[in-house]
């Protein structure tokens, strides 16, 4: 069974704060993704990567940076968090030609 682990599961920060969300996959997948989920918008792609050191821009990248340090690890960085970034964040991995496997999600609140 494919495994994608996100941490933390919950995070509260203040406006202007610095937040890093972590994701690790043990599936040997090349592709990793960061999505946010908001009521009324479904899942929207922030950034994705097809390998260590690679970064591709998604559909809603503003205010987010990401870094893929290894094949297993993909990080999402909010350097100046804003209340509009309060959301449920999902990481996922895939081979790029097959099923997407999701982590359990990180609920972020920016006060």
């Amino acid at each position, binding site marked *: 069974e494919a495994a994608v682990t996100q941490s933390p599961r919950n995070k509260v920060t203040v406006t202007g704060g610095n937040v890093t969300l972590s994701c690790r996959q043990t599936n040997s997948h090349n*592709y990793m993704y960061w*999505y946010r989920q908001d009521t009324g*918008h*479904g*899942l*929207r*792609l922030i950034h*994705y990567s*097809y390998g260590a050191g690679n970064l*591709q821009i*998604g*559909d809603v990248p503003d205010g987010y940076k990401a870094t893929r340090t290894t094949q297993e690890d993909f990080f999402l960085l909010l350097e100046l968090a804003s209340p509009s970034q309060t959301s*449920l964040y*999902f990481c996922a991995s*895939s081979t*790029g*030609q*097959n*099923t*997407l*496997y*999701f982590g*359990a*999600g990180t609920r972020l609140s920016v006060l």
Partner: protein
Amino acid sequence: GDQVEQSPSALSLHEGTGSALRCNFTTTMRAVQWFQQNSRGSLINLFYLASGTKENGRLKSTFNSKESYSTLHIRDAQLEDSGTYFCAADNAGAKLTFGGGTRLTVRP
């Protein structure tokens, strides 16, 4: 950009009954995936289809790439089937576009 339109946005079923969810695509898609988001918020893979039909228990999905749609049929609905169902599709890249979801409520 690519659009994935899901319908209905909400659906209520009595236990033991069934229905179909649909996704329409505005461009030709290479493959479609279906997910269930359960009450805990977890996203569970249901199907991946590049063409044709797949069946798993009480669920069956079809993908017609030529006519740009996919369906998910649920039969003999159970309470644990409640949740939100999403389709997602790609047009030959690794970047998927998600539909807005169908919120399914199964009632006793």
